[in-house]
Each structure stands twice: as structure tokens, then as C-alpha cells.
């Protein structure tokens, strides 16, 4: 307990650092995955290629990714850039599939109706397809956010300062409270960010609540769960 009180400042600093480092892959993954997911959804050939490729990237264990990335992209081995880029790759890998699945989930009749009303391809995508794909995209984004926050702790294994420092340091010095605190703070951050994303989704997509289809919503979430592989089965 004393350890906790003595190290509140350290825990605070690490938490801020952790949030800062995890925000980049989450945002970048989301932004990069929209065009990638669209291409995967739109053309049959690219669908297979892109989804297989991101699937393979996702298979790489994170510690191995941290080690193999530097010689490929030229970042220093112990650097925030190395960890952030690795996590961005995972985020894009999950989100590209989510976006492709989400776009495929939009009712074809609605798309035809929009086209019939004179919507061009670009306007239809941003004002009809993408908003309607929103709930499934959000489900994917929540998976990305939570797993990024959790995976970031492994960055400490190669010496990048995150909440994982509480694990490595606690382990070396035999302080169980340190490790336990690290686990709890990481989980809390992940769950809070997850809740915030749900609230943001309600704010941006007010119609989803009105539609009140709990079954369909839950299924969408379930299929985006795990490492979004449940959705892969569906292809």
C-alpha cells in the first residue's frame, strides 16, 4: 500500500504516456483502414489479397513485431516510433476487415434508392454507405482501442516507457503491488475508452438506438470480437 502512495506520481505519468502512445495507432488505424477497407469491399480480387495480407500481419506476435520492424523500416529499435508503428499495423489489420464487413452489411436496397435519388458515388459513400456501416465499424474500432491499450504494455519489454513499466520493474524488484496496479490501471483505461467510444457512437449515430435491434447489434459485436476472426469465418 505504501508503494502505491509513494508512486502515485509515476503511475499518473505512465498513464498519460500510455494514453498518448495508444491514441496514435487507434486514430491512424481508423483513418487508414477506411480506404483500404473500401477497396477490399469493392473489388473481389483486392478483397482476397488485402484481407489475407492483413490477416497474416495480425498473426505476428507483438514482441516479434517489435524486433523485426526496425531493420525493415529503419526506426531505432528502442523507440516510441517502433512501438507505435507496430501497433498501427495491428490496428489497420483489424479495422480494414471491419470496414469491409461493415460496408458489406449495408442494405443493397438503400444504396439503390440513394443512387436513384441522384447520389453520386463519392457523396453516397460518405452520406449513406459509411454512416449506415457505422455500427459495425464502431464495433471494430472498440476492439482496436481495447487491444491497442492492452498490447502497448508489451512495449516496455523492449524498454519503451508505458504502463508496462510497472510490470517489468515490479517483476525485477519483486513488487507484486506494482504489477497488480499496472494490470488494473490498464484494464480501467481500456474499459473507459471503450465506454467513451460507445457514447461517441450514440452521439454520432442517434438512429441506432431508435432502431433498437439488440439481437442484430449484439451479433455485430460478437462477430467483431476475438481478433475479429469470427468475421473472417463469414467470408
Amino acid at each position: 500500500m505504501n508503494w502505491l502512495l509513494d508512486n502515485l506520481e509515476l503511475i499518473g505519468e505512465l498513464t498519460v504516456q500510455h494514453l498518448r502512445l495508444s491514441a496514435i495507432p487507434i486514430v491512424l488505424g481508423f483513418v487508414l483502414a477506411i480506404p483500404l477497407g473500401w477497396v477490399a469491399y469493392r473489388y473481389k480480387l483486392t478483397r482476397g489479397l488485402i484481407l489475407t495480407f492483413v490477416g497474416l500481419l495480425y498473426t505476428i506476435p507483438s514482441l516479434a513485431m517489435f524486433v523485426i520492424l526496425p531493420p525493415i523500416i529503419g526506426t531505432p529499435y528502442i523507440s516510441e516510433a517502433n512501438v507505435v508503428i507496430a501497433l498501427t499495423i495491428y490496428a489497420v489489420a483489424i479495422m480494414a476487415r471491419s470496414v469491409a464487413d461493415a460496408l458489406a452489411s449495408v442494405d443493397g436496397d438503400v444504396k439503390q434508392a440513394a443512387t436513384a435519388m441522384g447520389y453520386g458515388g463519392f457523396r453516397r459513400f460518405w452520406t449513406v454507405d459509411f454512416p449506415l456501416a457505422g455500427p459495425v465499424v464502431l464495433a471494430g474500432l472498440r476492439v482496436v482501442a481495447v487491444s491497442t491499450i492492452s498490447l502497448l504494455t508489451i512495449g516496455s519489454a523492449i524498454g519503451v516507457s508505458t504502463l508496462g513499466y510497472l510490470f517489468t520493474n515490479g517483476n525485477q524488484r519483486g513488487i507484486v503491488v506494482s504489477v497488480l496496479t499496472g494490470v488494473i490501471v490498464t484494464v480501467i483505461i481500456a474499459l473507459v475508452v471503450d465506454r467513451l467510444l460507445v457514447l461517441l457512437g450514440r452521439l454520432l449515430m442517434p438512429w441506432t438506438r431508435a432502431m433498437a435491434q439488440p439481437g442484430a447489434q449484439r451479433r455485430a459485436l460478437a462477430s467483431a470480437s476475438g481478433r475479429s476472426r469470427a468475421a473472417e469465418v463469414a467470408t
Partner: protein
Amino acid sequence: MNLFTDAIAWLADPTNWADGGPIPQWIADHLWFTAIAMLLASAIAIPLGWYIGHTGRGRDAAVAVTGAARALPSFGLLFLFVMLGGVANRDLSAIVVLALLAIPPILAGAYAGFEAIDRRVIDAARSMGMTEKQIVARVEIPLGLPLLWGGLRNAVLQVVATVVLVGFVRNAGLGFPIVQGIQIRSYDQMLGAAILIIVLALLLDAIFALLERYATPAGVRAGRTRDHRTSSTRRRSAGGATPASTKKEMSV
């Protein structure tokens, strides 16, 4: 590229592969940890998931648990259990953590597999006079297998990645040469081990992908829609058990 040649040289060094040499031992340990954890997790999660899928009982709790489990940092959990379990029980503690991390995806695969089945198929089975036991054993389990294998595939990925971290608490598995490499600043060894880990993960994933494909009953495979983008929005009946139909239900 120089670094990669060094790593390949480390990988090709015969002394590393000699009988009782470190690399075969690390690979063997890695597979052993993975296999034991997967067996333990499956023994718990598959029957539980099937029970939840068949009865619908405890479903909300299962969804909450599988969702929240993703937030658990495997790295910290491993240190925590190993510290609490004591030095003598490091292997056991590690296996418990690995199994704990594998349970949620397997559980989700097991119950989602049952839920993805078209209710009409189950009603038909019941109206033909099948008992609940028969429905579970001869309808729900076979039709739920593809998603279950999908869940097992997620789990094995998670376990293989976490066994890498076991290298931090014990001289075992392919994570150890990385941990040792960090300490003695031997990048060829770290990179070589990373390559081995990636190859191992890809191989295991490919094996599970094949199992997943062949687990689909032939009748279901025949009724599967190829391109869901252009498929009708109406639900299919006979092929309703294919995951393609779950996808359609997702179109909120």
C-alpha cells in the same frame, strides 16, 4: 539488410541446432506450452460455450467476459501469476495464465457457433422428434464447428504470442532468445528468434485455418453464398446455418 544476413547466419548455425541444442529445445518448449494451455482452455470453454449456446443461459455474462478479457494485458498477468505462484511453480503459473487468455475466444466461438444456426433448422430437428441431446450432438455441434474452429484459431494465436513472453520469466520458449538477446545486445539472435516465432505463428494459423475449412459439414458448404455483397437480403432457409447468414443479420 545486413542485420537479416546476420540473423539468417544465427539461424543456420549448426551448433544452435545440434542434438540438444538450444533452438530445437526452444521450439519444443514453445509448442508444449501452447498445446497444454490450449487443451486446458478447451476442456473448460467448449462444454461451457455449448451449454450457453444451447440454453441461452449466462449469455450476457459470457459476452461481457469475452469483451472485457481483451482488455487484460497478458504481459502483466503473466508476471503477476508467476510472482504470486512462487519460483517453484513458474511453469504451472504460466500455463494457467495462457489458458485463462485462451478461454474467452474459445468460449465465444463455441456459443456463437450455436447461435449462428438458423432457428428453423433446430425447430425442424425438434419437430422430427429429435431429443434435446440429439439436437445438440447431431445438429448444433456439427453446424457450430466452423465458428468453434475460428475461436480455437484466435485462441492459439493469442497463446503462441503470450508464450513468447514466458521467456521473461523462465528459460523456455522462443521468447527467451529475444530476452537474452536484449540483455547481451545480440541482435542477430533476437532477429533470428523473431523470424522463428513468426514462422511458427503463421504455420499454426494455417493449420487451424485448414481445420476451420474442413470442419464445415459438406451440406452446409454446398449451400454457402459466394458473394454476399450482391446476395439477396432475404434469409436463406437450408443454408441458414452458414456464417453468411449471420452476416446478413448484422445489417442493422
